[in-house]
């Protein structure tokens, strides 16, 4: 390895930092008071002397403490809010003021820095803010909580639904289905899914946004990094916290489908539009309407039948923690149970088919001071989950696909013979799928273990310490299937002059007993080893913190080509002068097994500076500006999410030929895709400037602006390599995207007497543009993807609906399929008198992520009573309404919803907003165009909470510490243009939920 030498030099550099051995002096008693910015005492803060970590004292209610120490030793104070301050012991009376900028913020690799000193762009949300949500997956508590973080909700059950996460939008694109926009999520410094945790064990979540923060993550950092830090023990003596919450869940929106009469009428309209005769006679229509023949002409509201109005959740957690003299620990048990929305689930003896999700999370975090200079960290966490559902082939969404797609007129739930209803066209009886096909149990067992030893080497070299550790995680998932088949009966009326004279009964399928099978759909294992050296050196009013770290990681997923390895060497120098001027130099050298030798590793440096103006003499006295800091950074980071195994040219099976008198097939071999070379990681050049300020002690302002440029994105080369090449063309690492934007955070807070309030908002803006993608030849400029956003919506511009045949013949030829009156008429963009692919233009915005993401929060409390609310929204995003049954009606034997009420008919031609109903494939109508592209913007009321903190006089008599009762609503409202369904989950999936919770939190 070529760079081994450079790392050795760095190592030597550390040795050169060796300075004199510290002198020793006599111990004395120091006493002091700790107050906050406003002069209020800070109680229960930990005071310790760094040189003697066993000496731990806590401040009393007046903020006072007494501690033994020696002059010249370092006194450190840590509050329960993670504020942290150090002071060299000199005078015996100490008055220490600790303020918000003394907060310790995670900066990556399990390191922390004072907020006031940070030179990079990092956003944080802490536990008290997160705990205002009631969620299963902690990622769903992050909506609108951190500027720069985009969280997009998805449908599906709690078990499956993980939101899409983007940091500062996206600045890359994959090839085909290959996704390379994943952010890196780390829990306590190691890569892990955040969904493996429960919300109650999280201390804070930070996102790293600029190069200065990301450079130490090398070729995994370019999409941004999310740091999740779990809780450690805090406070004096054992404290126990418990919380219980009961929730009632309800589908946020369920689309409304037409009843049998409405469906039958719509079907007739479609037949007429297609040039045929109505399918149902007037008599038949009236039978649907009157319900006189419920078995032959049924009218079933499947969603009413299949779903119940409310589901429920229960969540209980108990945690205990302490910061004792030599042990600091945090322990947690969290129980979660959710009962889903299915209705008739108890039809079978011995089992239920309700969708259910039960999970226990466990965690013990220990920090043990083995010796004066040695600390062991042992974090052990795990979860055991189990869930139930009807035994549908894929997942719970199968049931919902059937519920949504089966028309009201399709068949009765059960026929008069007590057989499931069904037809060859609609073989899936939604009710049979809920209660007639058995059940499946899926489970997950996960264990995550970190072991770290930190050794202070102060005695050896002043300020030096070393750390080494490993982490090992594994996750095992199983699926126990107990499936049976059901038989169903089709009833076909025999009509004579419209009168039902007989009924043909046909049985399909058979009823079988439960059949058992078990599989392991996936599992994963991770192993990491880390080691680092840290050094702190202070001279005059200068301080230099240095770190050198090494890390190796391995992730093994199920199956082949699923082993991911990384080696990382990284370092950081953090220099501060006089508490005003700060500079960081970060770097990493990082390699991966996903890339070929020679281009698999890269060097990623970043520099950043900050100037804390509020420490300058000319501003420190200002009554207006309490805190003001300017930041700037520039540097590089990378992304190694590339398609695997494309760096060599393989030979693959290709078409063969046939020979011989039997015409038997003979195999073929051919060159596969040519080697993509040089194949390397994406490099992102990121620059950032920022302002952090606090005005009047009551207004926090945070403003960041960034300009990033990503290079080396893997692209297809059809646009740059001639077809005479005669072989599948390689990919090239030559795409580039620029991404720019800004984040603004405002938070106003104050308290006057018993009244406290806060009012805040975040606004994140990120706009990307494809600079180069080796685009294929396109005859018109407006067709070019280059210059547009990643995933920019493209489609045809609808200019109305054809009113009649002469309208069709007088219009440009619509070449996708035969058009009829009621079909969409398009604008001929290139005036060639033909409507084809060349008439597609950019429409709206990207379909992948919004350019604007914003939130607002408000909270008011009077004495113990308070209310909290959070709204969050997005703008500048486009969505493609192509979900069958909900948006695309009838065609392919699909259902029709009220969305299609405005479909074209000859009599409503002037007001119609949708094309005429049709049963044809109709490639003219059903393709990306302005009719189906919609504005994806929404504004949602994410949470509202009313709480009451019981008065101290009352609870202290009960031996309690702090007790809060609350009611909370989640996802209550949405303002958007989609209306029929949640704009964040438009698929045929388990709906997104609105929840009403009532809960209690107790501390003792």
């Amino acid at each position, binding site marked *: 390895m070529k760079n081994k030498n450079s790392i050795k030099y760095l190592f030597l550099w550390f*040795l050169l930092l060796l300075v004199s051995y510290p002198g020793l002096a006599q111990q004395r008693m120091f006493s002091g008071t700790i107050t906050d910015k406003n002069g209020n005492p800070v109680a229960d803060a930990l005071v310790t002397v760094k040189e003697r970590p066993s000496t731990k004292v806590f401040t009393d209610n007046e903020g006072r403490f007494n501690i033994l120490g020696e002059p010249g030793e370092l006194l450190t104070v840590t509050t329960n809010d993670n504020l942290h301050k150090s002071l060299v012991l000199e005078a015996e009376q100490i008055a220490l003021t600790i303020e918000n900028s003394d907060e310790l913020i995670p900066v990556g690799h399990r390191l922390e820095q004072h907020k006031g000193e940070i030179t990079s762009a990092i956003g944080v949300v802490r536990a008290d803010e997160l705990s205002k949500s009631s969620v299963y997956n902690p990622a769903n508590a992050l909506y609108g909580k951190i500027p720069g973080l985009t969280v997009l909700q998805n449908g599906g059950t709690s078990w499956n639904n993980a939101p899409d996460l983007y940091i500062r939008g996206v600045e890359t694109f994959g090839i085909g289905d290959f996704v390379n926009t994943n952010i890196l999520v780390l829990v306590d410094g190691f890569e892990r899914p955040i969904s493996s945790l429960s919300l109650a064990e999280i201390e804070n979540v930070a996102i790293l946004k600029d190069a200065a923060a990301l450079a130490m993550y090398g070729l995994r950092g370019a999409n941004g990094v999310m740091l999740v830090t779990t809780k450690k023990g805090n406070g004096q003596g054992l404290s126990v916290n418990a919380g219980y919450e009961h929730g009632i869940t309800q589908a946020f929106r369920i689309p409304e489908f037409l009843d049998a009469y409405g469906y039958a009428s719509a079907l007739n309209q479609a037949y007429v539009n297609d040039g045929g005769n109505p399918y149902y006679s007037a008599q038949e229509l009236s039978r649907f309407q009157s319900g006189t023949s419920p078995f032959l002409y049924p009218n079933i509201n499947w969603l009413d039948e299949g779903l119940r109005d409310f589901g429920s959740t229960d969540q209980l957690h108990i945690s205990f923690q302490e910061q004792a003299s030599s042990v600091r620990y945090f322990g947690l048990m969290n129980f979660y149970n959710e009962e889903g929305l299915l209705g008739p689930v108890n039809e079978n003896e011995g089992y239920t088919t309700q969708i259910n999700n039960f999970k226990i999370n466990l965690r013990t975090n220990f920090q043990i001071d083995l*010796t004066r200079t040695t600390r062991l960290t042992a974090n052990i966490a795990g979860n055991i989950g189990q869930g139930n559902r009807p035994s549908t082939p894929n997942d719970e969404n199968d049931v919902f696909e059937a519920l949504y797609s089966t028309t009201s007129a399709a068949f009765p739930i059960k026929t008069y013979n007590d057989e499931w209803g069904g037809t060859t066209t609609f073989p899936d009886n939604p009710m049979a799928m809920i209660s007639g096909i058995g059940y499946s149990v899926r489970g997950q067992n996960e264990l995550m273990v970190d072991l770290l030893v930190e050794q202070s080497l102060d005695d*050896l070299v002043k300020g030096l310490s070393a750390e080494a550790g490993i982490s090992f995680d594994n996750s095992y998932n199983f699926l126990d299937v107990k499936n049976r088949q059901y038989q169903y009966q089709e009833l076909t009326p025999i009509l004579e002059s419209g009168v039902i004279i007989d009924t043909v009964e046909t049985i399909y399928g058979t009823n079988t007993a439960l059949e058992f099978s078990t599989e392991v759909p996936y599992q994963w294992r991770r192993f990491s080893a880390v080691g680092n050296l840290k050094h702190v050196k202070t001279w005059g009013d200068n301080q230099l913190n240095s770190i050198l770290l090494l890390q190796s990681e391995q992730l093994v997923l199920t199956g082949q080509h699923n082993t991911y390895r990384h080696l990382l060497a990284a370092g950081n120098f953090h220099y501060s002068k006089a508490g005003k001027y700060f500079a960081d130099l970060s770097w990493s050298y990082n390699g991966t097994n996903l890339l070929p030798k020679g281009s698999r590793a890269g060097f990623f440096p970043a520099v950043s500076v900050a100037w804390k103006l509020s420490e300058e003499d000319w501003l420190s006295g200002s009554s207006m500006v309490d805190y003001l800091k300017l930041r700037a950074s520039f540097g590089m980071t990378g992304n190694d999410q590339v398609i695997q195994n494309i760096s060599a040219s*393989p*030979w693959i099976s290709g*078409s063969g030929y046939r020979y011989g008198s039997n015409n038997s097939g003979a*195999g073929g071999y051919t060159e596969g895709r040519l080697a993509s070379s040089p194949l390397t990681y994406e490099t992102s050049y990121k620059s950032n400037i920022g302002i952090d300020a606090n005005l009047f002690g009551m207004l926090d302002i945070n403003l960041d602006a960034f300009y990033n440029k990503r290079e080396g994105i893997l692209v297809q080369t059809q646009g740059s390599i*001639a077809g*005479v090449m005669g072989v599948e063309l390689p990919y090239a690492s030559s795409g580039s995207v620029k991404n720019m934007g800004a984040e603004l955070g405002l938070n106003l807070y104050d308290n006057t007497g018993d009244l406290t309030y806060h009012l805040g908002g975040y606004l994140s803006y990120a706009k990307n543009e494809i600079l180069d993608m080796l685009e294929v030849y396109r005859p018109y400029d407006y067709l070019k993807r280059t210059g547009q956003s990643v995933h920019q919506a493209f489609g045809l511009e609808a200019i109305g609906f054809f009113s009649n045949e002469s309208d069709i013949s007088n219009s440009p030829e619509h070449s996708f399929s035969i058009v009829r009156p009621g079909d969409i008429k398009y604008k001929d963009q290139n005036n060639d008198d033909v409507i084809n692919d060349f008439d597609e233009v950019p429409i709206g915005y990207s379909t992948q992520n919004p350019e604007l993401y914003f939130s607002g929060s408000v909270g008011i409390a009077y004495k113990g009573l308070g209310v909290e609310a959070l709204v969050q929204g997005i703008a500048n995003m486009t969505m493609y309404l192509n979900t069958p049954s909900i948006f695309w009606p009838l065609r392919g034997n699909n259902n029709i919803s009220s969305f299609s009420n405005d479909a074209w008919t000859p009599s409503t031609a002037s007001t119609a907003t949708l094309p005429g109903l049709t049963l044809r494939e109709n490639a003219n109508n059903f393709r990306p165009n302005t009719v189906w592209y919609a504005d994806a913007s929404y504004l949602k009321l994410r949470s509202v909470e009313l709480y009451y903190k019981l008065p101290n006089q009352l609870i202290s008599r009960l031996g309690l510490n702090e007790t809060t009762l609350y009611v909370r609503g989640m996802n209550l409202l949405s303002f958007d243009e989609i209306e029929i369904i949640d704009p964040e989950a438009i698929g045929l999936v388990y709906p997104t939920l609105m929840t009403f919770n009532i809960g209690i939190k107790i501390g003792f």
Partner: protein
Amino acid sequence: MKQVYFITTGKDKNKFMRFLSFSGDTENNKTNNLLRKFIKLFLIAAVMIPLLNSCEYLDYNELDQYDQEDIMSEFSRVSNVLNHVYSYLPADFMSVDGAMRSSASDDAEHEWDLSDIHKFNDGSWNAIVTLDDNWDHFYSGIRAANVFLTDMTGLTFDDIRYNDNYWELMEEYEFYPYEARFLRAFYYFELIKRYWNVPFILTPLTQEEANSVSPTSFETILDFIISECDAASANLPESHADVVSQDRGRVTKGIAMALKARALLYTASPLHNPANDQGKWITAAQAAKEIIDELGGSRYTLSSYTSIVNNMNSTELIFERRESSSREFEEANTAVGFIGGNTGTCPTQNLVDCYEMQATGLGIDEAGSGYDPSQPYVGRDPRLAATIIYNGTTWREDTVEIWYGGLNAPPKLHTTKTGYYLRKYLIESISLNPVNPSTDYHYWVIFRYGEVLLNYAEAMNEAFGPEVTGPGTLDMTALEAVNMIRARASMPDFPNGMTQDDFREKLRNERRVELAFEDHRFWDIRRWKIGPTTTDIYGVEITKVGTDLTYNTKLVETRVWNDRMYLYPIPQTELFINDNLVQNTGW
């Protein structure tokens, strides 16, 4: 000095911990201190250095694909590489967006309006909206051949040397290079007949080379094709059935000779021979005659007309594209009205009118031909019934009804536009019934002996006239050659004493009839430069009153012709990348 360093509750301290904590119980022992410093640094290094020393750690991968060496190491794999070269052989079953290329000639009209095939006919194709765009396809075949010829010839496969069949395999392997060279030449012919001057590539290219190649002239590439055919015919057997593997379907001597004959005929034709150089016609005649002399009557004989296509055992068959078992072609071309039928290729009245009267050998519009417009299909050249389904044909035990209101006719949607359905190449025994569907093998005729005779007749007539022999081997007249075709079709001979022009007209008619729907007409229109005469497309409208049928010819379509269409446009995507390429005139 007294210090309490340990706060752990405990008792006896582990010695190692004491050591780590640097508890200093031996005061002022500097040597000891230094030693400990050193050991501590060593410990740190022990943690850090292994991490660095593990570059191999990143070499891990789970690659399991063959590289070229792996392929070359085994005979069966090398053999499969050649099989892949064969896989680029064309067939015109549904070659242009579900339609036959014939539907872009005056032989047929495609039923489905949305098929791209109509862009040939309405003139809306160009370098951006390309049609039948086989540029990449044939260059892929050429690359496959180039790679084979560059790296996979002359191997010895030593590890199977002592296998029983080693020498047999090696004998077969001797042929491989010539098969590959022929296929490459064949693909070049497919390219130049479309695009005229094209990049001429005989080695696997690099990306840079591919992006900067210049076109080579039609003539140069044609000379190459001829010399490759000569090499192949000199070294390949007449039939592989006589050799070890008994692999019928592989390239043989006769196939190479047939390509040579066809290529030379194209070169001599008006499109490529504007000065009408007689020498070119003579060369073309000689190439055809070589086959007739060497293989005609022995290896190849004319068989029954109805047993040529989809029959790999036909004695007339020289080379075929073999297909896997399927029914797509039947589904696409069976008449609507029959189960599973979708109507596709609709033969035109133009083509039907070309079938002469069997009794007289005269065209239907010639005096005394015996044609009865009220019974238009009676007494016609038997090849009509073998090629086209017309009203009254029996098809799968049903009678086809093409009169207005009939089973297979308007006003029923998507019945024939022209009044005819395709017969040739459809396998009648294939069931399209969804209850018991079946499939069968299709064999697309690439070369057959009948074409060789027609090629010879055409070249001889152009070089010498209908009834004149030529020098040397050219001892058979054009008339004698075409009459062999006529005799096989049970049609009267061509009359004696025709002028060269009259003979040309009648021969072209004969070629059109004989080779209908075998992908010749589309190309013949181009090489004869008769495009403007093929624009009016006719069909028949049949009305039935009682049992009386009335046939009325109707104009189905007026097509657009532009002389630039004699050649294809080179795809704009290709010109965009390589500006050394030259677009064909008019595009």
